[in-house]
């Protein structure tokens, strides 16, 4: 336990030993901040005895003949006397505060007062000053000499290239890359090659997305899926394109306000949409508008200013000069967001930006034009057709067999569709397994219940004689459902497991009929049933139909109703019957042009009724003519779009129009989108929420920045400050925070720990910088470089400090356990993503496709299910298959209320809030996962097969190849011996158990290549599993 002491001395009070003059910020402020400021600091409301010790004025000012601190005079300094008193009642800090000064802290305070008790403004609020001619290595070396330390030797080349590759790409080097470096490629050339890799942007993005709290679900209550992955992909792209960090900042805070903002600039504003949102029934809008703005303002302060602004939400900051009013002035920049308080549980909560590629845009425009042309042509063809309503014919025409399409490539005109996901129905064009009709199929995919409810307001069905309803279905062999069903008029017909629907609350059914087993997976099958078996009567109206599935994935196609129909009773043949039926419906059908909608919804009997007696003949004639005109317009609408086509020409043109409609829909649907930030036209009045309570409003505030910082420059001094003003202020040369905070975060990324360890908190409660001048120097040079991120990263990895070997002697370890002084190379456990990606990479399984919707890789059963809301569209985890399983972890679907275990187990944050620094734990759960998780064990198998195939003939060359593939170096003699013995042992165990060997190599969905006997592959799999579990493997050494 005593071993911990040296480091604290080292950083806080080492100057005591060096007998230097104390620095207030480095040596004294942390002590006062921890022990005194809560009652004698910045927060005026909590200040005791009107004494403040955070400023010289407060500390020197005498009151009641007592001077709190008299520079150079311990005896007259009341504060000091209260610290050393033995009187319990007078003692400071008071006993009840549970704070206590250590002897070392007391010594420091004593010396500080003796030396003159000089104050400094908190270091982080002063503009950084660059020392000329400073280099990183020289600055580190200078500090090391104080403790008689020096840099360690350079690490060997294999260690270096692996360290660089992980730092810059999140992946290990390939053997070819290692060989090239060993054969003489310079270190700089090696660094440059990784800088050019698209993996660079992915690795940098991984860190930034923690800051931005990016995830794939809304986060609260239902925690439904949201679509923001375009933002994630933009971050990757921005780092790869080396977008200067000042622009990177500006775009995210206010890209939408830039002149002629590009889609990328607007996408970047998603930064302020990444906060968690709700749509919980009964939730109160004002409360959530407030919470969202608090989150956005707090994220801003921690990401760019490293200040814990959230505290000032409720009270003046106790330790830092941030008043509640100032916090709410930052909050005011976000309080007028145009996004709704309730996210509606949909993926595309507005403001939402569609992001077509130029091809997609052109396709869409063409499709829109084609659709309108097709409609014109259809309308022209029906304009002149003569029409006799069959209902008026005597005798009534005979019944004939007719097949009506309920849906094929689209739903019937004027239908309203409700999908359980709350998002638009999922159509897939030209699936690999083909369609039954047209070129689209309707897809259902969900862990449990999924349905599309089709309400045919414009084309209600009438059950014919001898009716039959049919639908084609194809279930996915990898993910078969438990039940398929159709519901109409409160009756259900289903195929599949009889008890799958038990206990579920899908509404009461009048009748339920089991129509048979599920169709054979992977084969298009026609499911059909007789509606009469559901106790439905011939001639009854069916206004809606739902297509349902429980579990798995299904494609549906061509749903029809067949039967003997009399035209006189057919809504799609008799205009008068149809009009009456639709106008008496409760719902106004969509897709009806406005001019005829009113007519349509008026009872035809009323539309024809004679006008009031009081009107004169002329008026009556005029209104009769108008009624006739309206009726004619409706009839033409009916003939063109609704009724059975009157002739072949119309049939052809109707089909052409429907296809054009589908093409337009498909073109539109194919365009992804992303949630973006935008302001309301008229900003909301913004008030301080007293004690953080939205119901208790205080003074009104205007957007602004804290007074301790340089003033905000408004583009229009007369106007309200904008987010663009705020963004420009953040990256203005005189702003002391952003550059420092940013270089520190990159330092943390590269060296494993920041120069300021508390990278999220540069305030007085955070730790001071271990190398203040170096941090300043880096901040200034970063600004001068044009905020060049790639140059900064290169500068860091090119240092002698980074290139050192990482082994540590016990005395250095006890002196500097966290390696703050960098007298050895950085050695840190890999991040969650890197650990999984490494296994996928060395095994050759990895799929390096970039971007797109989050993928659902392997996940143990029952991660989402026990927590998800019954009706959430992320309650049931439906795993992807095939190459999607092996995508980089950055693209894994992240559900906030139940994140993937491979992420959370290794300390990846759940992204419910901004995270500036991950911790690195070391737990048995991690060991279990690395040994047994299907993705790791499958990777071990795939790696074993590579070893057998590519690793040469002899066991020793194979072992060397395996070891080098994973660790970039050859095993030493001891390691070779241990591995050979281990291999022999596994062979012995599997020799007698072929069955076990065969099972072992079948873990995962990729199939073994069978290039060796199962026992051999299994033995090597265990050895690969062993190597992938080595401490050195999961560590950047």
């Amino acid at each position, binding site marked *: 336990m005593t071993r*911990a002491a040296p480091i604290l001395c080292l950083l806080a009070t080492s100057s005591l030993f060096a007998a230097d003059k104390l620095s207030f910020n480095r040596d004294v402020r942390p002590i006062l901040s921890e022990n005194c400021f809560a009652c004698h600091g910045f927060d005026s409301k909590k200040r005791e005895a009107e004494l403040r010790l955070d400023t010289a004025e407060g500390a020197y000012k005498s009151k009641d003949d007592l001077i709190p601190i008299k520079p150079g005079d311990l005896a007259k300094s009341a504060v000091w006397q209260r610290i050393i008193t033995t009187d319990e009642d007078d003692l400071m800090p008071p006993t009840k505060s549970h704070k206590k000064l250590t002897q070392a802290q007391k010594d420091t305070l004593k010396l500080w007062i003796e030396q003159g008790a000089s104050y400094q403004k908190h270091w982080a609020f002063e503009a950084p000053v660059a020392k000329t001619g400073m280099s990183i290595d020289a600055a580190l070396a200078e500090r090391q000499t104080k403790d008689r330390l020096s840099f360690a030797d350079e690490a060997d080349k294999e260690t270096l290239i692996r360290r660089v590759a992980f730092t810059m790409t999140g992946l290990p080097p390939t053997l070819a890359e290692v060989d090239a470096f060993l054969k003489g490629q310079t270190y700089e050339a090696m660094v440059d090659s990784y800088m050019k890799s698209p993996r660079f942007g992915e690795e940098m993005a991984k860190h930034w997305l923690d800051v931005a709290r990016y995830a794939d679900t809304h986060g609260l209550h239902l925690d439904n899926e949201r679509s923001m992955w375009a933002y994630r992909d933009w971050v990757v792209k921005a780092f790869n394109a080396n977008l200067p960090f000042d622009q990177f900042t500006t775009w995210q805070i206010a890209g939408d306000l830039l002149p002629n903002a590009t889609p990328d600039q607007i996408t970047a504003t998603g930064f302020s949409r990444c906060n968690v949102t*709700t749509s919980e029934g009964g939730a109160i809008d004002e409360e959530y508008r407030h919470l969202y703005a608090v989150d956005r303002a707090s994220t801003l302060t921690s990401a760019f200013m490293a200040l814990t602004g959230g505290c000032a939400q409720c009270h003046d900051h106790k330790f830092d000069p941030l008043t509640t009013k100032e916090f709410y002035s930052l909050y005011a920049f976000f309080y007028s967001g145009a996004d709704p308080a309730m996210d509606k549980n949909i993926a595309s909560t507005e403001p939402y930006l569609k992001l077509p590629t130029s091809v997609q845009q052109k396709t869409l425009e063409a499709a829109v034009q084609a659709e309108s042309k097709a409609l014109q042509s259809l309308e022209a063809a029906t304009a002149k057709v003569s029409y006799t309503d069959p209902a008026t014919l005597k005798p009534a025409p005979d019944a004939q067999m007719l097949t009506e399409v309920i849906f094929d490539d689209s739903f019937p005109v004027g239908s309203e569709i409700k999908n359980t996901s709350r998002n638009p129905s999922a159509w897939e064009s030209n699936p690999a397994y083909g369609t039954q009709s047209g070129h689209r199929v309707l897809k259902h995919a969900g862990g449990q219940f999924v349905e599309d409810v089709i309400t045919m307001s414009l084309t209600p069905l009438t059950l014919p004689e001898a009716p039959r309803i049919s639908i084609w279905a194809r279930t996915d062999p990898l993910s078969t459902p438990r039940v398929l069903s159709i519901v109409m008029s409160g009756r259900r017909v289903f195929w599949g497991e009889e008890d799958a629907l038990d206990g579920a609350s899908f509404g009461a059914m009048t009748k339920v009929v089991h129509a048979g087993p599920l169709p054979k997976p992977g084969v298009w099958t026609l499911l059909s049933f007789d509606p009469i078996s559901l106790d439905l009567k011939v001639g009854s109206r069916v206004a809606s139909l739902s297509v349902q599935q429980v579990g798995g994935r299904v494609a549906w196609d061509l749903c029809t109703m067949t039967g003997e129909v009399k035209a006189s009773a057919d809504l799609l043949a008799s205009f008068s019957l149809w009009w009456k039926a639709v106008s008496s419906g409760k719902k106004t059908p969509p897709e009806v042009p406005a001019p005829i909608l009113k007519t349509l919804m008026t009872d035809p009997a009323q539309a024809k009724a004679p006008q009031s007696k009081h009107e004169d003949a002329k008026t009556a004639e005029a209104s009769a003519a108008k009624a006739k005109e309206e009726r004619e317009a409706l009839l033409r609408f009916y003939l063109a779009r609704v009724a059975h086509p009157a002739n072949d020409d119309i049939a052809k043109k109707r089909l052409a129009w429907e296809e054009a409609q589908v093409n337009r829909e498909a073109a539109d649907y194919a365009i992804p989108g992303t949630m973006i930030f935008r302001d309301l036209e008229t900003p909301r009045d913004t008030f301080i929420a007293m004690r953080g309570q939205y119901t208790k409003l205080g003074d009104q505030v205007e957007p602004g920045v804290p007074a301790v910082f340089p003033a905000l420059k408004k583009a229009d001094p007369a106007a309200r400050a904008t987010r663009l003003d705020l963004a420009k202020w953040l990256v203005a040369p005189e702003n002391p925070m952003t550059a420092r905070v940013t270089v520190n975060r990159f330092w943390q990324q590269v060296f494993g720990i920041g120069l300021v360890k508390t990278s999220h908190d540069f305030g007085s409660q955070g730790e001071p910088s271990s190398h203040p001048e170096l941090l300043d120097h880096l901040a200034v040079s970063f600004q001068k470089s044009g905020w060049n991120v790639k140059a900064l990263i290169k500068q860091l990895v090119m240092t002698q400090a980074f290139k050192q070997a990482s082994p540590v002697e016990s005395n250095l370890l006890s002196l500097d356990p966290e390696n703050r002084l960098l007298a050895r190379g950085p050695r840190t456990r890999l991040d969650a993503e890197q650990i999984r990606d490494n296994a996928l990479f060395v095994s050759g399984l990895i799929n390096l496709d970039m971007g797109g919707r989050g993928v659902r890789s392997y996940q143990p059963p029952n991660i989402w299910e026990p927590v998800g809301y019954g009706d959430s569209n992320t309650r049931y985890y439906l795993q992807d298959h095939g190459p999607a399983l092996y995508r980089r972890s950055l693209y894994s679907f992240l559900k906030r209320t139940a994140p993937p275990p491979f992420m959370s187990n290794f300390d990846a944050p759940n992204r419910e809030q901004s995270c500036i620094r991950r911790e690195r734990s070391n737990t048995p759960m991690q*060991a*279990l996962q690395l040994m047994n998780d299907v993705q790791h064990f499958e990777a071990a198998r795939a790696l074993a097969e590579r070893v057998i195939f590519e690793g040469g003939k002899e066991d020793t060359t194979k072992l060397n190849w395996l070891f080098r593939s994973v660790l970039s170096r050859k095993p030493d003699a001891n390691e070779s011996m241990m591995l050979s013995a281990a291999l022999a042992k596994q062979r012995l165990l599997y020799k007698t158990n072929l069955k076990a060997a065969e099972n072992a190599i079948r873990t995962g969905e990729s199939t073994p290549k069978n290039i060796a006997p199962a026992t051999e592959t299994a033995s090597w799999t265990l050895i690969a599993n062993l190597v992938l579990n080595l401490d050195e493997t999961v560590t950047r*050494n």
Partner: protein
Amino acid sequence: MNPIFESNLLQTRRQFFGRSGLRLGGLGLTYLMGKDTLAAPDARVHPPIPGLPHFASKAKAVIYLHMNGGPSQLDTWDYKPGLQQWYDKDLPPSVQGGQRLTGMTSKQARFPVAPSLFKFAQHGKCGRWVSELLPHTAKHVDDIALIKTVHTNAINHDPACTFVMTGREVPGFASIGSWLSYGLGSESNDLPAFVVLTPKWSAKAQAQALFTRMWNSGFLPGKFSGVALRAVGDPVLYMQNPDGVSPANRRAMLDTLSQMNAHSFEKFGDPEIQTRISQYEMAFRMQTSVPELVDLKQESQATLDMYGPDVMKPGSFAASAILARRLIERGTRVVQVLHRGWDQHGNLPADIRLQCGDTDQPIGALLTDLKQRGLLDSTLIIWGGEFGRTVYSQGGLSQTNYGRDHHPRNFCMWMAGGGIKGGTTYGESDDFSYNIATDPAHLNDINATIMNQCGIDHERLTYKFAGLDARLTGVESQHPIKEIIG
């Protein structure tokens, strides 16, 4: 939390692992297969942080039974016979008092009073009134302290669930189980300190969600997060070897792994390597200890019968209840059972019957079982939801059916064991169970009480977060409820 403590703590843990790591190299790995190798009784893998407990603790372990969705206090513990006369009459505005309502009922034309449909009777020496829904729990009223005036800040599920477990309405803070395992460590070397069970439920209405943040460590180190003990798949994630990998294969692999990691340690000198060696050994021990833990066949038939017919069904509340006992017997510090399905906006009588059917007998059995084994005195049991429900009916009210909306103003929780004074009642609600009449108990007071029973001064267990000394019970002054402490 003082950074020096944290640093010391890490150091302590590292030293411990360091010792065992060195022994590993010296004696060979086979010795580590049994847990006895961690020989010395004080050699705990998860020791408490220095200075804890702050004072002698009554409770060594905590079982928190969380009824998620907000159980109705009016139909379980808060007996209001006078309400029968108020059937279908409007709740007087003076009682409603203009308090905020959820968006689900704020636009209701009327607020008709719905008296409980269930009969209440007096039980135990203390003569407490208990609903007929809870016949088994009712037998234990003399061991139970009932708090009738619990109140919370949030009115909707997500923030209220977050609040009841972390003391905050917004995500990011540490859960109570994480605080306790962080502060007190664990008695067990081969089971997690904090275990979470999420059993199935029977109510028919859509169940509210749970959130992993309810057992997450928030700003505390990740190892203090609750570990889910699962009913489907591996009981503990990734516990089982892949198909075709026998314990012998695994042991052989681990032997070499430890040797090679020890070899790495010689090269790098990084204490994290020693920690990792120990964690792999603990993982291996868990592969034995967890299956043993979940094997209910070791229980006597009499014990199993006591928990009711569902006890052998994996994932039932009954199975969770008996597992909770088995966990704390084996040294786990905190067990949290989160039972969903208590959000009864409509059709309350039928659904609450089903929910009580899931839970009542197992809870009664758990109390009996712990008592018989002499564990009740050292085990604190907590029962409650994230808020209560309104006296007025949401939606239609009839003689046989009603629903109730969320009610954060007053609701009931109970505690038993762990130094709690049985048979006591704290606080009274008004005649409508709509407001607190006497002795309010904020959820922060409840949490302060839980910590107190565990030997923790809730004001002194803090951790640096966002520039503050964060603690479970928030910044306002909170107190353990002395009246219910024995």
